[in-house]
């Protein structure tokens, strides 16, 4: 029996009161302006999050002392309407460069009015991170519990 044949996608839709090109710009080049500071996998405190604005571009974090930690790659770069990014961080909270082990998220920017954009978000293929049991197993002796604690803390103060 395969414990986790397929894990449903995470989907969210939000409306942004700004033009489509601006929303795309802030989501990509401006990722550092909205990323939560404690959502980080590096050993150093997070200094900045960078998304290189092109197909094949890297998405990574840089720590306060300069250490870089990869998160994923830009798979589809279609400004201002569509973006697909691989997510190489599994349950063990470590980056795996193998794309067949990576999930991915797609963001679609749809113009509802000149100054209003509907943003449709989907994070899919979680099963590619390996069986959930394996992920949980790895998480036991790595950073996951710590990250969850930080997450719970940030949710409280948010």
């Amino acid at each position, binding site marked *: *029996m395969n*414990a*986790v044949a397929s*894990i*449903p996608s*995470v989907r*969210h839709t*939000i*409306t*942004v*009161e*700004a*033009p489509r090109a*601006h*929303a795309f710009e*802030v*989501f990509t080049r*401006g990722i550092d*302006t*909205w*990323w*939560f500071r404690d*959502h980080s996998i590096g050993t150093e405190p997070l200094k900045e999050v960078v998304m290189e604005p092109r197909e094949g571009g890297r998405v990574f974090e840089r720590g306060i002392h300069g250490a870089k930690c990869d998160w994923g790659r830009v798979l589809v770069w279609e400004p201002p309407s569509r973006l697909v990014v691989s997510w190489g961080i*599994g*349950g063990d909270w470590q980056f795996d460069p193998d794309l067949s082990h990576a999930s991915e*998220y797609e963001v679609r920017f749809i113009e509802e009015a000149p*100054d209003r954009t509907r*943003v449709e*978000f989907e*994070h899919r293929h*979680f099963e590619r*991170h390996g*069986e*959930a*049991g394996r*992920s*949980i*197993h790895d*998480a*036991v002796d790595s950073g*996951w*519990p710590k990250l*969850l*604690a930080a*997450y*719970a803390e*940030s*949710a409280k103060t*948010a």
Partner: protein
Amino acid sequence: MKTNLKLRVQALGDPTRMAIFERLERGPLAVGEIARSLPVTRSAVSQHLKVLKDVGLVTSQRAANRQIYQIDADGVAGLRDYFDHFWQESLQSFKHAAEKSFKEKSQ
């Protein structure tokens, strides 16, 4: 959901429980079948299964007078749950950043 996930991670921190969980990844089993493949007693296996069941990682059902244990597919989808919350919050943060910078730009 966050608390549950943390409890699950803690439950699997015990090596014997992790071993039992890994046996069940291959398919549903009765207590005796699990005990035979591990250096622990039947009653110890039962105790560990109870912990795994309490945190929602395994379920059990009665079949032919035996209790059969299997992995709870909803319980192991913790990674997905985590990202659901993660993105919900992050997208709100993105929305605020985009709207704020647009307002500043158009002033």
